[in-house]
């Protein structure tokens, strides 16, 4: 009994995995069609491209015994076929009907495992019938839709073949993601052990004269390191999925939100084929939804306001993904009214910030702080108790950064920079007062040897001239609370950076670069601001990972 249920559960999961993306693609295409029809474009190509997908969804739903999905897909097919034959019926009403139907289909498939409620499907089918009947009444009765309905049986084989061209022979297998997580964990252990072996070798090499065996051992270790590195690369690639898999639902979300607010918003995405570690993707979806929601509700103006500002009635949201030096950059730009600087200023004043010392960008980045919301009333759509602080927090937890740029009257751009992968972090290992720390390479701009008088005092803060700019240089021991005095003379400073922010940290030694396996910090230990996690070094000892982002954000006097 239990095994039967499990088998069915697995089948349902397979069904969802196969059909949900298809339904989402269909939904996106309908949203695009709705837009094109509004602009007078016939959109023939799109209409034709949808048939195979709808047909596959219908067929799979029938096979799984899911009548609501089957009938909705069928009804959508009918509407498409009808519109294909009757271009005059394309327009706002048809578009809305299709978008609504595909939304229903997506919801039904998403909740397929829970047993679908057939009522909304019935209501939708009745709407479709009314629409088709009215269409036939207006135009002279056309034979083609009828024909299509009859022809469907014969057509089935060909479109089935089109929908799954290579199944069975493609060499693709489906793997539970938890297995990939487990593999990564084992790989991490292997890397620590390999570092331990290398460490032992170095100890041995110092004590003994070079022998042939020692040279061979050295070679073997280097070969092992290369192999592990390759294995890591392959595993990381396996974990990557295109970012479009979370973008899939955005056009619909934005359309529905905009409609509820009597606005019109068009989403343009690019770079959706760029891959990201699934573990990051899973967590970044919600923050992105939050930013999109904010943009539609607070950013983009209503049509009248836009007309007054000389903007097109339809607002535009650009979601662009690109890669820059090993990181994924997601830029979300709206063409709305921009952030309300005066309100941010008032709020910052009431919270007692030192305003004169802040430039406009610093001021605007206050919106990421907890409890810093400038919206007057809680909107049922935007305000789900989640603020930008939660967005910023998630991004930071992923080792990423978020920045905001606002052009008053022209719009806002949020820029998220994320690591491609979470688990393995290339780091610079440094030593401060005999403690070792890992600094993620992604935030290391430079390492500098200190000379006498490199560090000057200014406003009780250490500063240094670095590449023509004065940057603050803090003592590592003070920052990390090692107890050593602030006057300890240290031989190096590491310049950490994020966007335009930079800061030097004085350290005693630079130990080297290493790929470290990130281990999270037990909350029992606390929530340090300067440490984001821990790792195990080659000698088996634990080192803390410096949280460069938070250190850069701090305004400490150290």
């Amino acid at each position: 009994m239990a095994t039967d249920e499990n088998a069915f559960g697995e089948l349902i999961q397979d069904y969802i995995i196969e059909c949900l993306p298809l339904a989402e693609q269909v939904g996106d295409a309908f949203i695009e069609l709705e837009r094109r029809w509004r602009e007078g474009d016939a959109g023939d190509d799109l209409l034709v491209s949808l048939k195979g997908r709808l047909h596959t969804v219908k067929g799979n739903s029938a096979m799984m015994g899911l009548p609501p999905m089957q009938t909705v897909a069928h009804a959508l097919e009918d509407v498409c076929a009808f519109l294909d034959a009757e271009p005059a019926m394309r327009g706002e009403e048809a578009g809305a009907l299709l978008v609504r139907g595909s939304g229903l289909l997506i919801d039904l498939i998403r909740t397929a495992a829970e047993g679908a409620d057939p009522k909304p499907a019935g209501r939708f089918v009745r709407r479709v019938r009314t629409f088709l009947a009215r269409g036939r009444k207006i135009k002279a009765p056309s034979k083609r839709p009828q024909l299509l309905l009859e022809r469907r049986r014969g057509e089935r084989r060909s479109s089935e073949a089109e929908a799954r061209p290579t199944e069975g022979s493609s060499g693709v297998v489906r793997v539970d993601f938890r297995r990939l997580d487990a593999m990564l964990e084992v790989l991490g252990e292997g890397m620590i052990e390999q570092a331990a072996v290398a460490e032992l070798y170095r100890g041995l090499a110092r004590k003994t004269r070079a022998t042939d065996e020692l040279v061979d051992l050295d070679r073997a270790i280097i070969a092992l390191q290369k192999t592990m590195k390759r294995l890591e690369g392959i595993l990381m690639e396996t974990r990557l999925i295109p970012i479009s898999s979370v973008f899939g639902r955005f056009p619909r979300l934005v359309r529905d939100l905009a409609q509820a607010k009597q606005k019109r918003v068009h989403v343009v995405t690019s770079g959706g084929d760029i891959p990201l570690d699934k573990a990051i993707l899973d967590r970044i979806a919600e923050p992105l939804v939050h930013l999109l929601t904010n943009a539609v509700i607070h950013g983009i103006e209503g049509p009248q306001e836009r007309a007054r500002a000389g903007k097109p009635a339809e607002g535009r949201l650009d979601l662009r993904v690109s890669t820059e030096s090993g990181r994924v950059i997601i830029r979300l730009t709206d063409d709305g009214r921009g952030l309300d600087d005066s309100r941010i200023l008032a709020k910052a004043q009431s919270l007692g910030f030192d305003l004169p010392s802040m430039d406009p960008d610093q001021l605007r980045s206050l919106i990421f702080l907890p409890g810093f919301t400038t919206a007057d009333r809680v909107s049922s759509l935007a305000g789900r108790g989640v603020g930008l602080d939660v967005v910023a927090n998630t991004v930071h937890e992923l080792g990423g950064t978020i920045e905001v740029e606002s052009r008053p009257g022209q719009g806002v751009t949020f820029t998220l920079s994320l690591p491609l992968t979470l688990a393995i972090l290339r780091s610079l290992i440094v030593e401060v007062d005999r403690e070792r720390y890992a600094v993620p390479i992604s935030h290391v701009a430079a390492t500098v040897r200190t000379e006498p008088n490199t560090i000057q005092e200014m406003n009780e803060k250490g500063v240094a001239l670095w590449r023509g700019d004065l940057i603050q240089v803090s003592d590592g021991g003070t920052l990390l609370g090692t107890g050593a005095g602030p006057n300890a003379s240290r031989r190096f400073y590491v310049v950490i950076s994020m966007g335009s922010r930079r800061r030097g940290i004085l350290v005693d030694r630079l130990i080297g670069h290493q790929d470290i396996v990130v281990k999270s910090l037990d909350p029992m230990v606390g929530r340090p601001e300067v440490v984001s996690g821990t790792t195990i070094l080659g000698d088996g000892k634990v080192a803390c990972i410096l949280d460069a982002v938070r250190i850069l954000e701090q305004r400490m006097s150290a």
Partner: protein
Amino acid sequence: VSARPEPLSFPTEAPSPGPELHLVTFALDREEFAIPIGQVREVIRVAEITRVPQARAHVRGVTNLRGRILAVIEIRSRMGLLPAEITPKSRVVVVGVGDRTLGILVDAVSQVVKVPATTVSPAPEEVLSPGAGYITGVARWNSRLIMLLDLEKMLLLPE
């Protein structure tokens, strides 16, 4: 029924008078403390403990327990004593508290004992400094004085 032979028993062990507490005892400043054996996963020698900057009070640091990161709690300072000096006798008792695994740093681990429940009495007022509600009782047993600790009360402080 009376004709049946007596069940075998070890003559050296006094006949057990009733329920027993199965405890792991350890030393802090020559006083003896104990926790239920069910909470103890293992006892390890002290490897290097890495200090974590800005950690909460009473956290000694983190250590590598076969590839896992183990938080080590300084229970001496939690009990108002000076922080431990690591000696060859020092041990980390790995315990399960709630759904967490933690290490507690102790001066020395003495042994595993079975103590009759009847030897346990409530902790006398004078050993209970304010905030010491984690001492649940005192066992007087074989001329030893063993203080029983409630780890949950002691370690799971409000964040």
